[in-house]
């Protein structure tokens, strides 16, 4: 039953398993879908989809699978299909309005059923058949003060139509995101500190009591490893110029990182497009806040995890030429690429987060893609989205 729907879900990226599928079959056999398509839509979603980030993919799969399928739908659902393609609302004169003043609901219902029987398809703009924009008593978008409204604000919307609305688009995890979601993602960096390294230097009170009791009351001390986080993080952000469109996004990330108190140490540096001899402590990148890149590398041991945030979109000369730095008062004796390589070699764990969407990283689509690809050869680069950040954090855990 619906086996292809299972594969359609897999295809659109909803992680469904066989266990969940069997649960759904059980639910259906118990009649939980109330034999209707909208019932099925909700039951299947509750059973199969376990995160709101996948709701949108589910809607797409549902739409693909059930679009145009002949189901023994009730009156309203079928009429809705016909109403899908609307024409603009119709205005009506007061004289015409008089015509509709006497009506009774039962009669109308009977008429509706009769017309459904006789009508064989979509119909728009007329005065008799069910459709939109006309003066028929049945449909929506039209005008008939004594009519039956079908669709629009009604609660009885077809499941396919609900799916077509894609109301959960905002929850997709590959969309860009807010501070809190960043924070949640960053917490995953905590996993890195394992409980199997480090000294056993903390008294395990419960363990001690248990051991002492088992020892018939003779004191026996049990020690445990402390569960502090050893994670040290350094964040370098591109600031200014081509990064301006992404300021909001980057400041959200910055706030999130800043708030993550679970790191043992956290350092921030700024640069403009690419870094050379100097890094900056302030986003304005003025010489007053400059600090020697060499000093930074000396002070921070390779255990620091390096996260660089930047669009990597610049003139190629800024990466490849001596003296190519964008700011006129910065004179670099070595090209930017050399500096990038020096830094990536120093830190064993480094990632580059790029606010430019990854489909633009193709040279033919975006002017900055040439330098993006140069940088990508040195740094593992990820999109600055929730999914990208999660991949980046996974990458930070492995040594390369």
């Amino acid at each position, binding site marked *: 039953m619906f086996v292809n729907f299972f594969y359609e879900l897999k295809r659109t990226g909803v992680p469904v398993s066989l266990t969940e599928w069997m649960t759904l079959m059980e639910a259906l056999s118990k009649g939980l879908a109330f034999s209707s398509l909208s019932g099925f839509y909700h039951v299947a979603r509750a*059973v199969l989809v376990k995160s709101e980030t996948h709701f949108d993919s589910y809607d797409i799969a549902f739409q693909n699978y059930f679009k145009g399928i002949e189901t023994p739908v009730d009156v309203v659902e079928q009429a809705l299909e016909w109403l899908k393609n609307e024409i603009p609302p119709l205005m009506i004169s007061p004289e015409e309005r008089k015509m509709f003043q006497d009506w009774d609901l039962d009669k109308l219902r009977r008429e509706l059923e009769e017309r459904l029987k006789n009508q064989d398809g979509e119909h728009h703009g007329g005065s008799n058949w069910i459709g939109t924009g006309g003066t028929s008593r049945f449909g929506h978008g039209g005008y008939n003060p004594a009519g039956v409204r079908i669709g629009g604000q009604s609660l009885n919307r077809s499941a396919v139509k609900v799916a077509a609305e894609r109301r959960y688009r905002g929850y997709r995890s590959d969309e860009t995101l807010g501070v809190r979601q960043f924070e949640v993602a960053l917490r995953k960096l905590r996993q890195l500190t394992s409980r199997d390294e480090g000294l056993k230097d903390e008294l395990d009170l419960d363990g001690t009591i248990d051991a002492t009791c088992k020892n018939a009351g003779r004191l026996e001390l049990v020690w445990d490893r402390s569960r502090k986080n050893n994670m040290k993080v350094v964040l370098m952000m591109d600031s200014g110029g081509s990064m301006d469109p992404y300021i909001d996004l980057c400041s959200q990330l910055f706030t999130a990182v800043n708030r993550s108190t679970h790191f043992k140490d956290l350092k921030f540096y700024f640069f403009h497009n690419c870094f050379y001899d100097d890094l900056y402590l302030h986003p304005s990148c003025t010489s007053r806040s400059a600090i020697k890149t060499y000093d930074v590398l000396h002070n921070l041991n390779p255990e620091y995890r390096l996260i660089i945030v930047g669009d990597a979109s610049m003139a190629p000369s800024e990466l490849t030429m001596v003296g190519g730095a964008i700011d006129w008062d910065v004179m670099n004796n070595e090209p930017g690429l050399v500096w990038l390589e020096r830094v990536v070699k120093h830190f064993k764990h480094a990632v580059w987060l790029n606010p430019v969407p990854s489909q633009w990283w193709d040279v033919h689509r975006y002017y900055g893609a040439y330098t993006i690809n140069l940088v990508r050869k040195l740094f593992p680069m990820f999109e600055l989205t929730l999914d990208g950040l999660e991949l980046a954090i996974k990458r930070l855990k492995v040594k390369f």
Partner: protein
Amino acid sequence: MEVQEFKGTANYIVSEDLRNSVNVSITLGRPLLIKGEPGTGKTMLARSIAEGLGLKLIIWNIKSTTKAQDGLYVYDTVQRLYDSQFGDHDVSDISQYIKMGKLGEAFLSDNPVVLLIDEIDKADLEFPNDLLWELDMMSFYIPETGVTVTAKHRPIVIITSNAEKELPDAFLRRCIFHYINFPEPEMMVNIINVHHPHLEDKLIHEAMEAFYWIRTLNGLQKKPSTSELLDWVQALTVGGVSLDKIRREIPLLGVLLKKNQDFDVILSRLRTQSTNKTKTRSHSLWG
């Protein structure tokens, strides 16, 4: 005892979606996992289910230090040690030192119960995995006494999460999932009416306009939620604020917003809005 269908209660408005999800989870006997923005009534749901079905509610509040074992049972070794040292008890019977946790309590109850595992994401990452067997089989084993505790009736398990941590896949596979959407305006009016039945329509209308306007603004660190709107509406009535001020000045803003920066955002937006208004007015005078 047959558990009936959940239909909602008088003081908790439940959407049709959510009601279906609850009934699916009850019929299939699987835990219902509830996610959603803070203040959308996740915890209230369990209360409402218990009340609606006339069952007892057992709440297991999860904290960052909670371990799965705590929910099953605790072996009070210290008490046993004391008792053995003072010698006024017979300590050979270990079962008197076994104290049931919330899950154990739910299993041993003579009537079906609703068990709320609140904010499961607060606990350690492995926490949900440690409960897999117990929630699946509805039983656990106590090695100290050699007793297996089996649920007399399968409890209705409701689990809430604020998405602070990702839950393990194996755990998710066993749950029914529901995401509570932020209520649409029509639903919100119903919710307000349930909590404050004797308010003027005009006041509710004005307050809702202001509330949904604030929620549309970008750059807020914490958007106000349902519970804050309810407090605000009450504060407005108690404070006797005049109706035409509500949308223009948003009085008692502190009830809605909890962050300093958010305050500044709203105030500056209000200021620009009112200057714009006076500008257009003067234009029309000239025109």
